[in-house]
């Protein structure tokens, strides 16, 4: 019987610690010569599952079968990336595993057998052959630190192919690419498929799934949902499978009342630490009593925008951020003030980073000590502990934070609870400008609603809320206006009640023509 399956996963389960179940009983197969999309929300266990194929993790239970070249499936155990390569499985991780000071050739040579590893000419020639075959562009003598993100990614793929990978796993490859680069990537993926390679692409972008893949497998909260033919799929079917039910967000959005100018930003430009212009001439006004959404592909300048307002990011001369003090309606220039002064004036920022802890919370401290981060300066020499303790209890009760005690290190709490602590603390400081970034990152639906409600409460209290988000559905349902950033430029501010997802999607990816001419 002809076997068209390249890899089969059977009842794979992986847990971290006792509580976190990353994958539960996942059964999945990858056929030869196909592109399979692995679709799921953040935290649905896509990367963990693939890491077990690549030998990074070892499953707690379950079986992995790989085609042994004789049209038979053979059960294997993959204990290390080396084992994975021996089976022809190569994974391109989100964070590239390249040595910066080495050339492309040297990076490919790393970890090869001694007999070939030092024959750089031969390797360079082989690289060229691979490039010609599939349409890659790699300069073998270029050092990695001189490469663009796209070039690095290409090199990673070439490296995997060089080692004989027949099954390629790409972890969110397009997250870091421009649209043109994405097209190029898809082109080579099709070439590789035509050559009989199996490709798994991990993504949560539906349009890409529909464009590139043959079949789609969906994971939800670590569990396998289903696999369907892409030709039979549509955005709404996939979304439904991904999130469980059709996304109908019932966020109680009131019309903004008594809006007042709170933050007037003019010609704001920033250069990030790599010397790249991260924000380019951004001007807008945020009003008290409304939620201003900020949309954009990740890394379009959202972080710099918030940090510039919070006084954590240096700005280019000519930038202006004026804050209208609530009581006196006086305008005060924020640029030149320290982060502390700005915070004391009533501008709060809660930024939820990927690891959820790095910005704003101290993982090894309990809730109580984390509350202190805002207030510890009060008093003489010694920290004042009573206030933070009361505050911690208040946040715990109001937001239903699940924690054994307010002294349990927040690192041990689940992601959602960590975020409640962070957002809760900023809200309790009674700010007049509340900036939140990725407040619902990786949260389940119920917890997300708790956060939306909190933000709406703040809006009704007259606070100017700035909400940086990833999920367009949420931005559309929660915000009053949406500011769209594209490549550090302000590409438009739209009314959230009348705009469409498509319009925002377009603004996120394509600079408007007049912008391009100006820029």
């Amino acid at each position, binding site marked *: 019987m002809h076997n068209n399956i390249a890899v089969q996963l059977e009842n794979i389960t992986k847990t971290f610690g006792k*509580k976190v179940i990353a994958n539960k009983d996942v059964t999945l197969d990858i056929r030869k010569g196909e592109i399979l999309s692995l679709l799921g929300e953040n935290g649905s266990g896509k990367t963990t599952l693939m890491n077990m194929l690549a030998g990074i993790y070892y499953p707690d239970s379950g079986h992995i079968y790989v085609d042994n070249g004789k049209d038979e*499936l053979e059960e294997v155990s993959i204990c290390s990336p080396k084992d994975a390569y021996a089976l022809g499985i190569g994974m391109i991780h989100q964070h590239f595993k390249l040595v910066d000071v080495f050339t492309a050739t040297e990076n490919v040579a790393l970890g090869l057998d001694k007999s070939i590893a030092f024959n750089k000419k031969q390797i360079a020639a082989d690289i060229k052959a691979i490039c010609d075959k599939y349409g890659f562009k790699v300069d073998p003598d270029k050092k990695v630190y001189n490469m663009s993100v796209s070039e690095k990614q290409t090199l990673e793929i070439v490296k995997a192919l060089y080692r004989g990978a027949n099954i390629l796993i790409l972890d969110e490859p397009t997250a870091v690419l421009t649209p043109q680069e994405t097209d190029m990537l898809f082109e080579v993926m099709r070439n590789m498929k035509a050559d009989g390679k199996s490709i798994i692409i991990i993504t949560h972008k539906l349009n890409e799934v529909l464009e590139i893949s043959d079949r789609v497998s969906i994971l939800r909260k670590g569990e396998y949902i289903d696999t369907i033919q892409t030709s039979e799929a549509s955005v709404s079917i996939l979304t439904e499978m991904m999130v469980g039910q059709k996304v109908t967000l019932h966020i109680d959005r009131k019309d903004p009342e008594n809006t007042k100018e709170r933050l007037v930003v003019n010609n704001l430009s920033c250069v990030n630490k790599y010397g790249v212009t991260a924000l380019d001439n951004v001007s807008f006004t945020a009003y008290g009593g409304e939620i201003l959404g900020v949309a954009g592909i990740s890394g379009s300048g959202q972080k710099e925008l918030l940090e510039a307002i919070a006084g954590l990011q240096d700005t280019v001369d000519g930038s202006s951020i004026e804050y209208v003090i609530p009581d006196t309606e006086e305008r005060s220039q924020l640029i030149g003030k320290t982060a502390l002064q700005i915070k004391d004036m009533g501008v709060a920022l809660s930024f939820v980073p990927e690891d959820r802890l*790095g910005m704003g919370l101290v993982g090894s401290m309990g809730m109580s000590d984390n509350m202190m*981060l805002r207030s510890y300066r009060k008093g003489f020499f010694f920290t004042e502990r009573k206030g933070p303790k009361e505050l911690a209890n208040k946040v715990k009760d109001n937001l239903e934070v699940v924690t054994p005690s307010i002294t349990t290190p927040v690192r*041990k709490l689940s992601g959602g609870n960590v975020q409640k602590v962070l957002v809760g603390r900023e809200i309790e400081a009674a700010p007049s400008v509340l900036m939140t970034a990725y407040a619902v990152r990786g949260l389940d639906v119920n917890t997300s609603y708790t956060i939306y409600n909190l933000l709406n409460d703040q809006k009704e209290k007259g606070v100017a809320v700035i909400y940086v988000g990833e999920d367009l559905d949420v931005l559309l349902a929660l915000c009053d206006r949406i500011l769209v950033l594209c490549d550090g430029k302000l590409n438009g501010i739209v009314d959230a009640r009348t705009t469409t997802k498509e319009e925002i999607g377009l603004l996120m990816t394509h600079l408007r023509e007049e912008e391009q001419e100006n820029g």
Partner: protein
Amino acid sequence: MAKITVHKKEPFLRIAKRDSMPLWQSILIRVISVVLALVVCGVVIYLLIKVNPLEVYKSMVEGAFGAFKEDYKFFNRRTWITIRDTMMLLCIAVGLAPAFKMRFWNIGAEGQILVGGIATAACMIYLKDLPPALLFICMIVSSLVAGALWSLLPAVFKAKWNTNETLFTLMMNYVAIQLTSFFVAMWENPFGSNTVGIINPNGHEGWFPPIFGQDYLMNVIVVMTITVGMFIYLKYSKQGYEIAVVGDSENTARYAGINVKKVIIRTMLISGAICGLSGFVAVSGASHTISTSTAGGKGFTAIIVAWLAKFNTFTMILISLLLVFLDKGAIEIASKYDLNDYVASMITGIILFFILGSEFFVNYRMIFRKKNKEVQ
């Protein structure tokens, strides 16, 4: 479809991080590790010298706390020396605590002790005619300042240009050693001996005064004061809080409006100053001389103390005592059974290996093949 199983093999051993562990369990693991260490040492000793290990352990205790004779008194000369050395080690470890808690790897305690010692010796030599109280103030202040200055350089470079503090502080040690050689040559006494000799042997100017007839009680008072002070500083002061925040996450500190550079420099100054003060304790309170071996590796041993105690200064007392006890005991058995120093180091090494190793079992659990049995 044909599925065949050929060489399916699960890894023999997998390692996973523990969520948490009850306190009694973690203490139990540590106690077991010490017992195991003693057993292994016993076997090694027996194989090497064919002596009853219990006898050997008894000599170790005697080495640290005096021979068990009929009129045994606990506070004898040996015990006091053990206490003196414990206090010295503790003082350095307490000095390292704030830096390490901030995740600033100050491995330059050796150098900071030496410059503190030089400053103290200089005061003892040149200012011996001052009234004792004034002389002591001079010694304390100058040793604090010397240690602080020695740590200022790596701290500033770390704060401004993010240089590697480990290498920087380490290299400062060698500079300090050379500097010490220079001063030893300058203060040589008697001429040609290449040592400074006991400073002020007759008038005892600048020596720690005996209290209740005990030479080293003063050391205990000074070091315990610093230990308690540091505990309060780290746990209850605003600056201590800032240190903890910076140590855990610089980004969070930045978001909270903490001036990270300032905290790094300030904390390192404190750390260096206390290490410098250890030099004062070493010179004025113990050896009454200065040489390149005044620090004698204690600056490195103190790192182990600080880590094992998880920067809790009170736990450091116990750990310092344990390490000094091991050291004294090992020296004793080496001389008693006519072995060389290496055997002593071996025994200390085995015991430390087990104690450090126990931390692994506290933090991780092991999962063996198939049986999935957890090993505590």
